[in-house]
């Protein structure tokens, strides 16, 4: 008997050579399992873009703002309801589209960018995030922007663009060479940027149109799937943003105006779905769909209250675009899964950070001097 056989308590029928071979096989199997785990976890491919890197880059570009969203950092909470028109019921089995259904809604208006104390500016992209509270714990969360198309097609392009568009500390503007190089490598983004730049800028949040940009699919009761993109179209006519407004010194003029508007009367948007047809791009958010596509007015979002961000309200909600009720599913757009992943990473980080009050206080801008 060898020492090896004694140490391992091996069956006396095994030769030391056999014990050694078998030990090697066991070690190989255990190490192989560990190696496969490491490979799947991305440790062996450090070059691949992951969710932490995207959020890291937001932090690098915007500086640290603990407790705030890494993007769309400046915002205001809202509450209201969704009144279904019933016209969506044939397209999606989601209960909120049933005729006569009224679904409670909470949400958040915000400005794109990771600077929670930036002054409101007319040209900053605005967003409308909503959370529909369906019966039995189901929810629909959706984040929408007031631009016609999304500036990038893939998460990798988004990551590159974040750095290329980083404002130079000296000039306060992005380095033109970096932007030029980015657009040269991404002609689809150059085209999208031109469309975004040419958009009509409205007076404020209440008369703005917010779009899903990414495509989704509505699933009907019989299983029929329809590719859709949706938009929140304001009930009130849009008025172009005026020179006087752009010159306002009030740092929160867009948020204050919205809060005041809601205090006067509920602000309404129509939820309008555009139905995609065969061949319409669902995996490329930089491309608009043809303008003659059929649309369906699914109902109205009615905002009846606003509230400054605080413990437990919209501040602590992750508006993950893939939190969907049965009857709505994601499309093959690669941005959707990436948004879901990056939002989750941002949410997990800010959840544990100390909170400071939002710049938006939800007090009337013209209030009496306090």
């Amino acid at each position, binding site marked *: 008997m060898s020492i090896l056989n004694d140490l391992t308590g091996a069956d006396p029928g095994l030769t030391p050579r056999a014990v050694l071979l078998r030990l090697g096989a066991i070690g190989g199997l255990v190490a192989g399992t560990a190696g496969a785990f490491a490979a799947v976890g991305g440790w062996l491919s450090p070059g691949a873009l992951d969710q932490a890197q995207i959020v890291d880059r937001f932090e690098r570009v915007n500086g640290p703002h603990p407790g705030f969203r890494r993007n769309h950092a400046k915002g205001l909470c809202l509450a209201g309801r969704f009144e279904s028109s019933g016209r969506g019921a044939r397209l999606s089995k989601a209960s909120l589209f049933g005729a006569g259904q009224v679904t409670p809604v909470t949400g958040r208006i915000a400005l794109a960018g990771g600077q929670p104390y930036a002054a409101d500016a007319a040209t900053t992209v605005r967003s409308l995030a909503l959370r529909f509270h369906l019966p039995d714990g189901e929810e629909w969360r959706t984040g929408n922007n007031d631009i016609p198309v999304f500036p990038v097609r893939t998460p990798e392009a988004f990551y590159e663009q974040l750095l290329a568009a980083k404002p130079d500390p000296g000039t306060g503007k992005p380095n033109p060479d970096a932007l030029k190089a980015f657009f040269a490598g991404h002609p689809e983004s150059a085209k999208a940027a031109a469309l975004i730049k040419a958009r009509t800028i409205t007076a404020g949040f209440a008369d703005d149109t917010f779009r899903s940009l990414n495509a989704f699919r509505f699933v009907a009761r019989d299983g029929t799937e329809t590719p859709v993109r949706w938009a929140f179209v304001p009930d009130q006519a849009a008025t172009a943003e005026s020179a006087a407004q752009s010159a306002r010194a009030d740092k929160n003029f867009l948020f204050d105006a919205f809060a005041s508007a809601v205090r006067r009367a509920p602000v309404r948007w129509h939820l309008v779905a555009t139905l995609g047809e065969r061949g319409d791009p669902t995996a490329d958010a930089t491309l608009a769909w043809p303008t003659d596509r059929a649309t369906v007015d699914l109902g109205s979002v009615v905002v009846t209250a606003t509230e400054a961000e605080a413990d437990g309200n919209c501040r602590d909600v*992750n508006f993950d675009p893939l939190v969907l009720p049965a009857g709505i599913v994601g499309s093959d757009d690669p941005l*959707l899964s990436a948004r879901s992943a990056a939002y989750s990473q941002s949410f997990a980080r800010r959840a544990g950070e100390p909170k400071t009050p939002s710049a938006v206080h939800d007090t009337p801008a013209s209030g009496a001097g306090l």
Partner: protein
Amino acid sequence: MSPTAHFNRPARLLHWTMAGLILAMLFIGVAMVTSLAHYQALVALHRPLGIGILVLAVLRLANRWRHPPPDLPADLPGWQRQAARASHILLYGLMLGLPLIGWAMLSAAGYPIGLAGALVLPPILPRDPGLYAWLRPLHTVLAYALFGLILAHLGAALMHGLIRRDGVFASMALRLTPSRSR
């Protein structure tokens, strides 16, 4: 101890089913937290699989309680006996604990915990981002611990099966033909 003593058939079926599910779950989990392209698909698998494992772990514990496992060989050194006992307590603790912590952390984060279709689990904790920030990394650390324990369990099982050849591995092996009842 009878040399042919083995775990009862439900125990063996549960063991090998859960071995596959838990390994799949750990690989899905570790891929999920880095992947961008497959994040959503993996999360959609992770949640129902986790609840499935929780249910199976409860059944398994109940079966184990009613049908105690066979004794370890009498000649097994004391430290190995203790290591086996401790690792099994930890394995059961993590099989039950990881899904519960996952469920609790999603509750604290305020996510609807959709399993399939319109089926949503109720929250088991109040919404509290601070609690989520604490539970989320705990879920990861304990998942790594479970993976490490499974590697040790695999290595030890193969030592019994290939080197000691003392019947411990055979007591959990799945036979293709039903074993004769004793």
